[in-house]
């Protein structure tokens, strides 16, 4: 369970590599032997239960924390205390911090600090995110502060952008704006985004890959489309009673089987085509094959780990 798995991304050199990464806070193990590789020009969603270690993973990726053991590598080099690597990494934590009180001053601060600062992009982003350059940042709402932090981070033209709960506090329009901006940066500038969030619905239509952290271990790393299509929910009714074992004999990998009167609800690890092909042979009166939402996949995977969610899928 603790071992990291999967090799997402299509770049030859992963932009970020975690090798047997562990981090503890006193007796609490926040991350335990996590291994994964994140390829370039992609959007990677990091999901997980509360206290799973998502923020810790991001802080290790940003070089804030020193790994207790293992390594966090940016383009093959350790991130911790690596100033040149940090020139290309931007981390927006869940509570942004600003050294100066206005966006204007902060832009000057970042301009003097980051070699990749793009003034044209900054001005363009200001037209997308309606923030006053001379308004006091500490008097802005949480959502506006987050917009300011993300805007400043993107204008630094990083290669790796780490976002912790980036959509929290943003209104729906701004959320879409942010997604569009990030998608464009990924396409045009080979940006890689690693985003940790509890809001799975936000990640669903946005990420290329997702990784699920639970109790400090990485349960899986998967391409989102493959993940959603690999497990489907089926609602069906048949003229004769059908049992779980009967469906198993037909070659279906049944993960969960429930009946409600004559209606059967099953979770199957298989493709939609395969399920249709198998179940059509039983002449169903009703057959609905539904892909699972990311939230349902999340709940299902955690239920396998005895997390208290087993009934939520019903």
């Amino acid at each position: 369970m603790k071992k990291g798995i999967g090799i997402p991304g299509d770049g030859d050199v992963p932009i970020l590599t975690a090798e047997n990464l562990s981090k503890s806070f006193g007796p609490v193990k926040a991350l335990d032997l996590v291994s994964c590789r994140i390829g370039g020009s992609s959007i990677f969603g990091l999901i997980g239960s509360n206290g799973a270690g998502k923020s810790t993973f991001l802080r290790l990726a940003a070089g804030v924390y020193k790994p207790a053991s293992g390594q966090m590598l940016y383009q093959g080099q350790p991130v911790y205390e690596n100033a040149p690597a940090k020139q290309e990494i931007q981390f927006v934590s869940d509570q942004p911090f600003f050294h100066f009180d206005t966006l204007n001053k902060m832009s000057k601060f970042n301009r003097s600090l980051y070699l990749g600062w793009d003034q044209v992009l900054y001005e363009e982003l200001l037209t997308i995110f309606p923030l006053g350059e001379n308004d006091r940042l500490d008097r802005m709402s949480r959502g506006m502060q987050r917009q300011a932090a993300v805007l400043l981070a993107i204008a630094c033209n990083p290669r790796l952008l780490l976002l912790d709960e980036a959509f929290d506090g943003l209104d729906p329009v701004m959320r879409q704006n942010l997604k569009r901006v990030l998608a464009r940066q990924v396409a045009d500038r080979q940006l890689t985004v690693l985003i940790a969030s509890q809001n799975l619905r936000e990640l669903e239509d946005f990420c290329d890959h997702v990784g699920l952290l639970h109790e400090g271990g990485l349960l899986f790393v998967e391409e989102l489309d493959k993940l959603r299509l690999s497990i489907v929910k089926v609602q069906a009714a048949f003229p004769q009673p059908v049992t779980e074992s009967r469906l198993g004999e037909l070659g279906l990998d049944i993960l969960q089987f429930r009946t409600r009167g004559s209606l059967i609800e099953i979770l199957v690890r298989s493709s939609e085509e395969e399920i249709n092909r198998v179940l059509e042979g039983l002449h169903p009166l009703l057959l609905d094959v539904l892909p699972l939402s990311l939230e349902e996949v999340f709940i299902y995977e955690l239920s396998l780990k005895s997390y208290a969610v087993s009934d939520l899928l019903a």
Partner: protein
Amino acid sequence: MMTAIPQSAPGLGWVFGKSFQRMRSLMLLFSFLFLLAMPIALLIIGRDNYLTLVSSYNFLEPAFGEQSLNQVLWPLHIILALISLAAVAVLASTGFRTFYLQNAVDRESSMPLGSSRLFLGRALALLAAFLFIFAVNAAATLAVFAGWGKIAHFLTYSAAYLKLFAATLELLAFCLVFLALSGTLFDAILTCLGIQFAWASSVLHILGMTNRLTDLETDILWLLSPAARLFISTFRPLSVWQSLIMIVFWTIVAWFFYKKRPAEYAGVRNGQLPWYPALQPFFVLWGGTLLGSFVHGLFAEEQSVLSSPVFYMGLAAGALLGQVVSTVVSGKQLRKTKMTKEILPVLAGLTLFALMTGLVCLCMAPAAQPW
């Protein structure tokens, strides 16, 4: 396989500039307070009053201890020492306050700057701020004395002023150690002040027990209380070289702890940090000397302290009490703590007491002056 990453541009100068920029207004405020305490105060007193007041004393008057102070400059100098104390606490905590907020630590630790560069840039900005404050005040005071045709008074006073500056920097460097070690700003200030107060108080008790005060050799006893040195420098001839060595020493210690400081210290109470047991012997020392001296004064005043059993009983009880207090302050539940863990700091504190007392007895001068 590695790919090339461009070298980072911002250097020490960048950190220095930004840090200095952030403490500029406070630096100006303390410069004004310095001016108010010395040259403006002198102008308010007036040349004639000044000369009348100092006419019956000269700079060699031993009643003032430090030879470069006279009757007027002595209280003004003490006020400068008090303002210096406040300036160290305020400016140092302003320069390093971002240590204690998780979001600030997230931001700063992810910036393309090494921790050594961040530390040195900030420390240099603090040094520059104090240089500015002291230099502006010196220039203004010199101007006042020059206007009065008494430049010699300023030149004589400058020795005490330089010692105050050195003692201020020593205190600053000492504070940086605790700022680098602590999890919250409140704890950093409290620990820094607490350790100095406990140390100075214990030293005074131990010196009082021997009823002797030696000369320069016992200055070593004040090393853990640079705040006291701000004021001692007014009364006693202290070596500027000793201060310089201690400034370098504490700065290196602070830099070491800053470099080793994990980001996860942010917001954690000192009592929960792994170095806290090293602090507990100071609670023991303080509690022991305080209670020991108290019960001795109460029940066996006529007897010599070091040969008084009552004192040692009070010392032992106070040591245990000090340890209990230190554990309670750390937020740990007494019933959950192990006896062996509690005894070790007590033994360390008592050893410290024995060493200090031994040192004082060794250094006793035959004709030492009472404090």
